[in-house]
């Protein structure tokens, strides 16, 4: 496999990486996520364990009219909720939906606002999604507020028109969060705002590395389409010319080339000759002085 082929394969892989990175970048989720649920009860309850969810930052509840939000001790909220039709938010059901359960109480509708209950044959759950018949409001009628009882046990309270939006930090840990419409009508929506962790640290490296590999592969592919032989010929000629430069010239005095041309500086040893034991006098060098030696060290 040639270098060009390897580069082309790397380029294809890089192109795939680049495409994957760009697709991921385009579909990269926001770190702040809104999850909305539809409500069909006049009361919504968020327990302390849900309020403590990591990343949950704000809760917004909308309605048609005045809305009240309160926090309370868990036991107090539970006691109060026994008489209410309420939607309990129990957590997330994916980022797009909230997990909820609904508690309905049976109420006996009365034709007139009388303090004494009157029997009726048509008792119906208050939390029914079917529209219930209500007296038509005449001009000048005052909108009656629902009777939710004492407010003494609410630890903190907020009020709004059509919506309330509360930072989760505003509710003390361990307290239950309750929102209800002032007139007893069903709430519209609940929206959780949360900051989530997005694992997108790999997207940018994937894009850059993919782009680099793709560019390399493109260069390799283009190189197969261009005739480079004239360029290669010129390069080879230049290399040969450079290799010949200096041939036949005199060696510079004192240079390694001059010493090499002058022969080995180490004299050859004469094994077996007299004087080897040191008793017969100094070793004799039979090599004529100044004779050049071969590169292998032999006498020419």
């Amino acid at each position, binding site marked *: 496999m040639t270098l060009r082929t390897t580069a082309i394969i790397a380029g294809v892989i890089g192109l795939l990486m680049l495409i994957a990175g760009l697709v991921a970048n385009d579909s990269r989720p926001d770190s702040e996520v809104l999850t909305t649920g539809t409500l069909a009860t006049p009361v919504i309850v968020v327990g302390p364990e849900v309020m403590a969810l990591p990343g949950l930052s704000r809760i917004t509840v909308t309605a048609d009219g005045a809305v009240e939000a309160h926090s309370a001790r868990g036991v107090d909220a539970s006691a109060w909720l026994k*008489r209410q039709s309420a939607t309990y938010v129990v957590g997330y059901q994916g980022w797009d939906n909230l997990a909820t359960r609904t508690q309905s109480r049976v109420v006996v509708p009365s034709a007139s606002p009388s303090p004494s209950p009157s029997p009726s044959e048509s008792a119906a759950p208050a939390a029914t999604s079917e529209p219930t018949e209500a007296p038509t409001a005449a001009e000048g009628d005052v909108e009656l507020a629902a009777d939710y009882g004492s407010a003494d046990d609410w630890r903190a309270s907020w009020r709004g028109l059509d919506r309330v939006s509360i930072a989760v930090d505003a509710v003390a840990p361990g307290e239950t969060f309750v929102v209800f419409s002032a007139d007893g009508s069903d709430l519209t929506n609940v929206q959780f705002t949360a900051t989530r962790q997005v*694992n997108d640290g790999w997207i940018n490296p994937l894009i850059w590395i993919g782009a680099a590999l793709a560019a390399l592969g493109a260069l390799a592919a283009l190189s197969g389409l261009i005739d480079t032989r004239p360029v290669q010929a010129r390069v080879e000629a230049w290399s040969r010319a450079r290799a010949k430069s200096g041939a036949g010239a005199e060696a510079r005095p004192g240079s390694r080339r001059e010493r090499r041309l002058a022969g080995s500086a180490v004299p050859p040893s004469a094994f077996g000759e007299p004087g080897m034991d040191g008793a017969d006098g100094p070793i004799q060098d039979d090599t004529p002085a100044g004779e050049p030696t071969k590169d292998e060290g032999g006498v020419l």
Partner: protein
Amino acid sequence: MKRNTLLAVAAIASALALAGCAAEPPVVGATPSPEANSALLESQAQAIIDDTFTVLAAADKAGDASLLDSRFEGDAAAVRAVEYSVAAAVADAPPADLPSEVQGLYVSNAETWPRVLAAVSEPPTDDLTPVVYLWIQDSVEEPYTLRAWAHMVPGATLPAMAGAVDGATQLALGEQGVDPSPRAALENYVEFLRQGAGSELAPDFAPDSYSQQLFAARNTLAEAATTVGGAYVDTVQPNLANTYVLSTSDGGALVFAPLQVTSSFSVTGATLKVSDRDAPLVQGKVTDRATYTYRDFVVLSVPAPGIGQLPAVVAAEHHVVTVKAE
């Protein structure tokens, strides 16, 4: 082979793009504990007190007891209504001065109902002692309503109570952790009131001005009745159903006890004269017998076992509410 490799790479890239970006939604964990265990935070208790005195001010101004309904109930509403009727009929007999500034709050940490809230006021004047107030909430739907008040006995000291974060534990009347139990202490004190200063139960209680005044009035009226050939009889009954107990910091108990006292004065063949102040309370035509009914309220401190103190009444009030010709 090459095609398979490309497909695998594409599948991995798609999976990364679709699934690898966002963390899963958080899952609900353990329920965190609340920062305050008391039934009411200090701000809540103060809001109830402020609302009570706002209601009281409006009712006082109008002299109309029906305006008290949202925050007054039981003996407190009955006594204030009597004070309005007396104030309307008698000059210089205004309703009692009830100070709205409080110097101490006693909050329950109960998780059931009824629940107790008590407060001690600043002294209304230099001549009067602070007032102990008692609010009760019967259910979560009902507001805390003022049920009774009583001025502190001169020289008395209220025991230390748990703060508004932890709250005081509401004790049952028969609580055995204190000796005597709140019920026994109250019943013995009522029996002591019935028997008088010479009762053998007298040494079981610290001296208090309430019992002393009751005994003094009894002696005076009994003596007066005897002098004219009449009779004087009084009765004292605890209202156990509306008696509440809070634990103190040292393991004792503070008993908030309404009492009903009746005093009957009769002289055969005579015509009794009711005082101008009590005249608006008369029901019927008084001749030779008059029975006064009082709605009293005492706060009885039962010390913790082993500290060598006697149960003592620390606050008490004596309110006449009716005078009947029977």
